[in-house]
């Protein structure tokens, strides 16, 4: 799985990271995995609700946002970006 970080998340982590997944995991588990690697992600890994998470971070796969319960797998490319709600 490839995870790309944009904007301030690049500072919390790096530009891009590859993680090998033997089996699919939930998005929440992926965030927990990231938190163990990058402490700046700890605050997102404990989030329990999608609405709460999406106020601070948006995870996009194939042009669509991921929810905490969604499964991610090894072939995925995930973009991690700031959310926005417009003006």
């Amino acid at each position, binding site marked *: 799985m490839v995870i790309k970080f944009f904007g301030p998340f690049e500072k919390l982590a790096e530009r891009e990271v590859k993680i090998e997944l033997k089996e699919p995991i939930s998005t929440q588990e992926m965030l927990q995995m990231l938190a163990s690697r990058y402490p700046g992600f700890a605050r997102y890994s404990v989030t329990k609700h999608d*609405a709460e998470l999406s106020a601070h971070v948006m995870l996009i796969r194939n042009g669509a946002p991921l929810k905490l319960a969604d499964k991610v797998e090894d072939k995925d490319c995930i973009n991690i970006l700031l959310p926005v709600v417009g003006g």
Partner: protein
Amino acid sequence: MFGYHGKLLRVDLTQQRAEVEDLDPKLLEKYVGGAGIGGKILYEETTPSTDPLGPENLLMAVTGPYTGTAVPSSSRHHMMARSPLTGFLGESNVGGSWAVHFKKTGFDGIVITGKSDHPVYLWIHDGGVEFRDARTIWGKDSYESAAILKSETSEKATAAVIGPAGERLARVASIPHIGNIVRAAARTGLGAVMGSKNLKAMVAYGTKDLPLAEPDALQKALRAILPHVRKATETFGKYGTSGGIDNYEKIGNFPIKNWREGRWAGASKISGVAMHDTILTGRKACMHCPIACGRHIKVTEGPYAPMDCEGPEYESIGTLGGLCLVDDLVAVAKANELCNRYGMDTISVGGIIAFAMEAYEKGVLTKKDTDGIELGWGSGKALVEMVHKMGKGEGIGSLMTEGSKRMAECLGRNAIEFAIHVKGLEPSAHDPRRFFSQALSYGTAARGACHNASWSHPYELSLYMPEIGIPEAQDPYRIEGKAEFTAKLQDLMCVMDALIICRFSQVGKAVTVTNQVDWLNMITGWEIDIPEYMKVGERIFNLKRMYNTRLGVSRKDDFLPYRFMTLDRTGEDLTNQLPPMGRLLSDYYSYRKWSEDGIPTPEKLKELGLDEF
């Protein structure tokens, strides 16, 4: 009476006379305030023959029961008139500080009619209202005018003041509100209505207390929730409304090249993150708002220096930047500043310039038409030059400020095919091919292509509100249930525009509908529940529809521009579907209990207590 002063200020500019009208408590319970009270007055006191730019048109600014309290993000008022841009209902909801200052003068709203025989401004204070000569500031830009007005009245005051665009009746003219923060009642050309009355400004500052039913309970409730609001909106406040432009570009919501393209690498160069890392010098907040999404920027060198002013927010960047393919953040910021100074709606201006760029590309406009300006895609220089031309009404700029619909009709050829508007209003920066609720809301909103009428796209990403029947975020492309989903959120936004509270209080589910109703009851002493509360919103939405129905609006006016319904954008990872508007509208009318032509039925009007309309 709690939460209100119970007073409406009525101003006749022709006679230069003001009267105070008592507000009926039953009327307040039925319509609450803001868009509700304003909508009712607009319906009753204008007719289909009212000239939007004639003295008979009304111009209103109405507050709500939240205004002047410590409820977060509630320093707002609702402005209404018959729109000179669309010809239909005109409205704009605006934040800042004017609403609080005005309400503290002892009034809940102001209704202005007539036309002064010379430029005037209104100075509204604890002692009432004064008509003051504005001839010496007529012609000056809004920032310069506000500084003079404050020096003549009170440095603590806020000025709702038009610029040169409003004075010359440009149909995209806004009403900038200038106090400690600059905010604008920008949409639907209300600045031109003000200009048509020879009214340069409404300056307000007051100190009167507002009686509340349960002030201690309200204070306790607000103290309890404020840490949660601050935490939920922390990221939004830090990077502003444009913080996640990269995200919106990736999911296909960002507007690109007059709505023709799906992906654009330039988006990241004009995002809130780029602004944060370059020209941002501070954050700004409307009164009583813990979010502080406003930007302050400073530019000291380069072709657009100096700039030390408000920075652009998401919609302005999307339209002035994305639609025109301008990836120069400073040029976009300059165009935004100029729109504020001239007093023009950044969303419409961006949409119209993008339309003109496409007309130039297709040869419908030539270099002769633009007075030598090379109006190519992506030119920041051309963008800024065209904003100047529009603000001054010079050359083609005069036609452009008539709006893209009128401009296309004037240009002829095939221009009408790429003039992107609904009911004459240019869309905000959200693509309806990415969110079907957005498509439905653009189509059915009273003022035209307005994202704020439903503010539903966050509810198609992650937000939910179980207490109004939205237990989880809805699939953006789901058709089944989309009508009910969209209508419920439109009703919610209508009642929020009556309270009044900002859309952004919902970010991260910071404030819920349950919170809103609890606070309303604590402020007013009412005992309404959520179904009654939502019924107020539905009543206001239907009232606004009836206003437009009287002007001939029906199903034919609720469709989206050809491009949104037929142009399938392409791009890597782009999810993109064309909204099936016929099916969506039929479902929607059925849910609303409107006729197949989109007219509210007598049964529905009776159910809502709108029989009189």
